[in-house]
């Protein structure tokens, strides 16, 4: 089957009134979560996993994906108007966006953020559509060593790029692997760390861990700091939301580069929209003829990161749908949800469930159009929503999470797991341990374990197998270089200093 007929099938599924409605709901919720500072896409999607359990898998994923890329649209609103990023991926947008708003150019900044998101997002979905099949064909030839190398790369990238300290990132990842070991070992049938608890035979439950780590701990972090100032009255006087012809000319190049950078970074296992937005902003500064103007309120500074974070959100579906390797923290949660819905991630997903993969991809085209409409004319409505006291929203997130977790398996034990990970997540956030590596490791744990063991069985116990096959060798060397690069650059600087002193 060629791409066009696949896409046609996808649109037939995505355009049914039922799926259209849920796509709209996902985009609506995503924008809302994006607009509200303090609730990120990971928490939003994690809460939705149990809530969408009763829906058919394709519909459930249309909603959850809509929330994910919807937050990328909504996140820029408060960044530009109030200098408060709605999401981590919009942190860079504050730099120039807020300055533009202070100069009375909030309208064009918001407009450019929405158009850049739409253009880069759609560009990334087109690339996703056309790279998916070739990638799957290549992946079908992958053996256990290649899969281990891919999972290893995902884990190294996420640990070295998130958080402040590489050491703590590595500790988070190792902790996640240990969590993933709880339950029955898939290869031998032996129980591990279950201590006679029947509830632990299936492991700690991916959703319980994810909702605890992301949603519950996020509420804990939020209630301890006074957020009142965020929700003060926002004055919005918009003459026009449309960027001028000059604005378009200025941001054309930035948007194009942001889209490409975003897609590539999103498609790498382990890296997501936040990293993409930072890198594209830095790249624009390098490319620009007037780098000193960045941070003073220039439109390129909005177009590049806003384009990049959307392209990355769509791009992170590439490894998730084709290889079964998550491209970011949020897609790690989505991958876990895939298994909850009984679908097997990996290259066979597209062959076994083409209606799921193509229905989801087609819904993203539709979702992006919906989001453009939702975000531009209805901007005033979203700003009004910021006036809902935040003190009312936080308790609601707690009870929705509790209800959703209970509803998934109807066991009270799961609620205790969620609470425990809520507290662990809170402590980790306070102590600067990144959370994304834990979730990625929990999701990838079983794959890491089986591919590692199978590889060692094939090689008779020699680790050389990961370095003698070309694809796995390339991936392993790349990951190791990436991991060790900060160490070497430190050493280099020290050596340079020493010789300089002498």
């Amino acid at each position, binding site marked *: 089957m060629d791409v066009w007929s696949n896409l046609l099938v996808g649109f037939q599924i995505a355009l049914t009134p039922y799926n259209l409605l849920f796509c709209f709901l996902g985009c609506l919720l995503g924008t809302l979560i994006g607009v509200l500072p303090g609730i990120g896409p990971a928490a939003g999607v994690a809460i939705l996993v149990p809530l969408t359990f009763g829906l058919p898998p394709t519909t459930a994923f249309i909603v959850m994906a809509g929330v994910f890329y919807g937050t990328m649209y909504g996140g820029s609103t408060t960044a530009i108007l109030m200098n408060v990023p709605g999401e981590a991926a919009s942190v860079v947008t504050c730099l120039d966006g807020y300055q533009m708003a202070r100069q009375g150019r909030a309208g064009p900044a918001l407009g450019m953020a929405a158009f850049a998101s739409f253009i880069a997002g759609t560009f990334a979905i087109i690339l996703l559509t056309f790279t998916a099949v070739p990638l799957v064909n290549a992946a079908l030839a992958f053996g256990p060593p290649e899969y281990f190398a891919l999972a290893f790369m995902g884990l190294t990238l996420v640990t070295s790029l998130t958080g402040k300290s590489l050491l703590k990132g*590595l500790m988070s990842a190792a902790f996640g*692997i240990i969590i993933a070991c709880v339950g029955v070992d898939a290869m031998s049938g032996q129980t591990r760390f279950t201590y006679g608890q029947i509830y632990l035979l299936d492991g700690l439950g991916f959703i319980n861990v994810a909702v605890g780590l992301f949603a519950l701990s996020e509420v804990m972090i939020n209630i301890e700091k006074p957020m009142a100032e965020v929700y003060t009255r926002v004055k919005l006087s918009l003459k026009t939301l449309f960027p001028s012809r000059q604005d378009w000319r200025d941001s054309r190049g930035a948007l194009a580069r942001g889209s490409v950078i975003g897609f590539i970074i999103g498609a790498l296992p382990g890296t997501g929209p936040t990293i993409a937005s930072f890198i594209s902003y830095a790249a624009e500064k390098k490319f620009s003829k007037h780098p000193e103007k960045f941070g003073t309120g220039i439109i390129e500074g909005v177009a590049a990161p806003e384009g990049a974070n959307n392209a990355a959100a769509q791009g992170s579906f590439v490894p998730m749908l084709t290889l079964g390797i998550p491209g970011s923290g949020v897609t790690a949660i989505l991958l876990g949800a895939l298994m909850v819905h009984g679908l097997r991630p990996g290259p066979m997903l597209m062959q076994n469930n083409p209606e799921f993969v193509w229905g989801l991809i087609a819904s993203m085209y539709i979702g992006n159009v919906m989001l453009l409409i939702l975000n531009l004319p209805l901007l005033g409505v979203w700003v009004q929503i910021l006036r809902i006291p935040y003190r009312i929203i936080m308790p609601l997130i707690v009870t929705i999470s509790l209800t959703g977790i*209970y509803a998934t398996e109807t066991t009270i034990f799961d609620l*205790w797991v969620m609470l425990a990970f809520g507290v662990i997540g809170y402590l980790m956030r306070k102590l600067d341990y990144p959370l994304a590596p834990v979730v990625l490791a929990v999701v990838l744990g079983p794959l890491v374990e089986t591919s590692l063991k199978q590889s060692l*069985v094939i090689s008779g*116990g020699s680790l050389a197998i990961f370095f003698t096959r070309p694809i796995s060798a390339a991936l392993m060397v790349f990951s190791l270089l990436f991991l060790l690069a900060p160490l070497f650059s430190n050493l280099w600087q020290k050596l340079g200093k020493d010789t300089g002193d002498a």
Partner: protein
Amino acid sequence: MKKADQISGVVVLLFSALVIAESLRIPEQAVAAGRTNFAPVPGFLPFWAGVILAIFATMLIVSALLRPAEPGKEAVFPRGWALASVALLAASVAAYIFLLDVLGYLVDTLLINIFLLRVVMQVQWQTSLVVALLASVSLYTIFQVLLGVGLPTNAFGF
């Protein structure tokens, strides 16, 4: 963060020691068949993950010991009401889970909502009651009535 890193490093080190000890106790193979020339035992991955975690934790402790203290940046956790509100949230969720089978979903959810809104978030009484009631009833309707999930009931059947 210097002191905090030392403490969290020690806690993680103890945790990894426990993981290593426990993974050595995992029986070699529940199913004896299928063992070829080299098949890693079930305790293989948790053992090595524990060892790696222990190494990193030691590195964290050592690096925290070696670097100078950062005055003004040492306080990691909030004090006073901020800390109390986080503790109250965790405690009320624990109480909620504990009482879920006794009070039933509807009453228990109503109570935790009122508590969180009124006591933890200090919303006015009237608003707390209205929001709590609306939230509990709508969640009950969505899950119990529309999705058909069997939510816990109390002795009176709701």
